[in-house]
């Protein structure tokens, strides 16, 4: 028999005990607010930090005494994510309600004006709309290209054949390259004078070929580079699904003379569906943030501006921090709605069958 220790009862609100987290929160909040009001920023930061640590310690002791192992195990991760991700995110959410530029001292509360400007201003609204449609176009094109190419490559490598290990690593290499190098070298391949693409077309009797001169060409160039780089990611996930299908299922199907097409949909597909969904989810999230290839290949010219690059421009190059933050929260809203919709559909599907 395991000895199940009976958890101690929680301490009263007023007792000073290391596991009294309610009191810790109350004291922590009061001291932090006082510190922020009364002390200079560099000092109050540390006071607030110490209070946060105290509350965290109270939570840990509390979880340990009452056997909340779940909370205890998750705590370090939540703490790191809170400090480095969630807190900065909330900070920038707050900034989006202010008029603030990172190169100026002044800051003033303007409520929802940033959002209102982005959505209704006659200069900014069409720009936002154009960037959104461009981003949507890139998401659809790059993700579908990655899914198709990745899937086909996975099918190619699903069988066991001589030298497979060595050929597989060749296909995986693009994913390991630095984004900067991929962008710069694709601009080298696309160069009208000494680029490979242009020279091949010239050798076949064509003119000097300037890929980036039309929107279609520029988009194709960016999509090609991005899809080339990230298809191996999809491939790896799909391949993992393909090799996990038990062999006896195929053997049984062969005995029953099931057609190849039906064999795929009834045997293979259920095994790779979860991984396809995971690949689709992660690639879509990343595709919404597409910026580096655009920066390096077209600098947003030829109407290839994406919303993520637009945010970088506003927030970093023009120092309009709060406007950039507002814009990214509009983007986050779109992504969250889409992801939730997607997870909902995916869950319903998997429960339905």
């Amino acid at each position, binding site marked *: *028999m*395991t000895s199940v220790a009976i958890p101690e009862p929680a301490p009263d609100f007023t007792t000073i005990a290391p596991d009294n987290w309610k009191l810790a929160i109350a004291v922590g909040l009061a001291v932090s607010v006082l510190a922020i009001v009364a002390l200079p920023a*560099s000092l109050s930061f540390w006071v607030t930090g110490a209070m946060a640590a105290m509350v965290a310690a109270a939570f840990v002791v509390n979880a340990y005494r009452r056997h909340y192992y779940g*909370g*205890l*195990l*998750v705590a*370090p*991760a939540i703490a*790191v*994510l809170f400090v*480095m*991700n969630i807190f*900065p*995110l909330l*900070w*920038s959410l707050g900034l989006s309600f202010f008029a603030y530029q*990172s190169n100026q001292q002044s800051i003033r509360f303007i409520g929802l004006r940033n959002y209102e400007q982005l959505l209704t201003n006659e200069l900014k609204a069409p720009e936002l709309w154009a960037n959104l449609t461009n981003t949507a176009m890139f998401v659809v094109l790059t993700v579908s290209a990655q899914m198709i190419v990745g899937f086909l*490559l996975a099918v190619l490598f*699903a*069988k*066991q*054949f*001589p*030298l*497979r290990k060595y*050929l597989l690593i*060749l*296909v*995986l290499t*693009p994913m*390991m390259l*630095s*984004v*900067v190098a991929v962008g710069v*070298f694709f601009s*080298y*391949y696309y160069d009208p004078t*000494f680029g490979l693409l242009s020279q091949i077309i010239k*050798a076949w009797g064509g003119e000097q070929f300037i890929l980036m001169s039309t929107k279609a060409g520029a988009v194709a160039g960016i999509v090609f580079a991005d899809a080339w780089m990230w298809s191996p990611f999809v491939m*790896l996930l799909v391949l*993992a699904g*393909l*090799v996990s*299908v038990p062999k006896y299922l*195929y053997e049984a199907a062969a005995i029953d003379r099931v057609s190849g097409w039906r064999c795929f949909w009834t045997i293979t597909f259920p095994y790779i569906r*979860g991984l396809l969904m*995971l690949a689709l989810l*992660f690639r879509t*999230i990343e595709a919404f*943030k597409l910026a*580096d290839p655009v920066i390096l290949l077209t600098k947003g010219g030829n109407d290839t501006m994406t919303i993520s690059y637009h*945010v970088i421009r506003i*927030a970093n190059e023009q120092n309009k921090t709060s406007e950039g*933050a507002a814009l*990214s*929260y509009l*983007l*986050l809203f779109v992504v*969250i709605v889409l992801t939730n919709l997607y997870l909902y559909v995916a869950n319903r599907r998997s429960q339905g069958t």
Partner: protein
Amino acid sequence: MAETTSFWERLGFRKASGVGEAGWGHTLFAAIVSLIYFLPVLLIIITSFKLQTEALAVPPKFLPTSFFGLIPEQFVFTPTLENFTSVFSRAYVAGGAVESTGFDRFFFNSIFIASTSVLLALVIGTLAAYGFSRYPLKGNDTYLFIILTTRMLPAIVVIIPVILMFRVVGLAGSYLGIIFLYTAFNLPFTIWMMKSFFDELSLDVEDAARIDGSSDAKVFFKICLPQVLAGLAATFVFGLILTWNEFLFALLLTGVDTRTVPVAMNQAVAGGGIGVLWGLLAAIETLFLIPVFLVTFFLQNHLLRGVTFGTVKR
């Protein structure tokens, strides 16, 4: 008959489980496809052996040798190692003194920062994933979704408050700051991935061990962890690849001493106003590719097995 590993089998000519087996015909087809896919990388590697004039030659010079006169001379270049030596030290002005470029430091930084933060994320993330999997909290899915949300915003939005925060605390340009940030950057993927591995484990073994009197810690270290080793390897490789090449955070948060290779590479691209030095850039990228290529190659078997094990329902 006793199974022995022959020389050929060690070279990769081995039979193993899979969706089926195919012969050399399939190898030939796969080799053609892989080489076409690998071509842009191969061109980068070839460029790293070229001088600037050869890199910009029209028609392009593809090959380092004419294969005894089979290939016309105009497509052949003389390979040089100059780019590789000038990665680490070169004269900035023609005829000037040869100075160190500091790239040895940048390579050390990249290796140190990437490996430390990925390992740290792996430790913290694995614990959290185990917690999410075995001791579900109230609103478990909501927590997991919030963790995923942190990857959805453009990095630039997260980075501005982080820069302000680091300046106040004095972490700007330090190893600690960037390692901490990368750890957070890797956590969401690590948690999602490792949770799906733990979800797949059979609970019977763990319950049996508990009944025999094993402590919770012992169950985790002696029973669960050994079963997800492959998953740890897979997550490590994915995290390493992403962190190794991360650019924006490194650009804005590393100082002169802690600069990583992608940032330094970007500066080398822009350097000097004489256009991009293609050979040099290619040499940097080639050298930069080697460590992560080797790690992926040696963990490759785990990578496939690991992902399989983790995400497919039995």
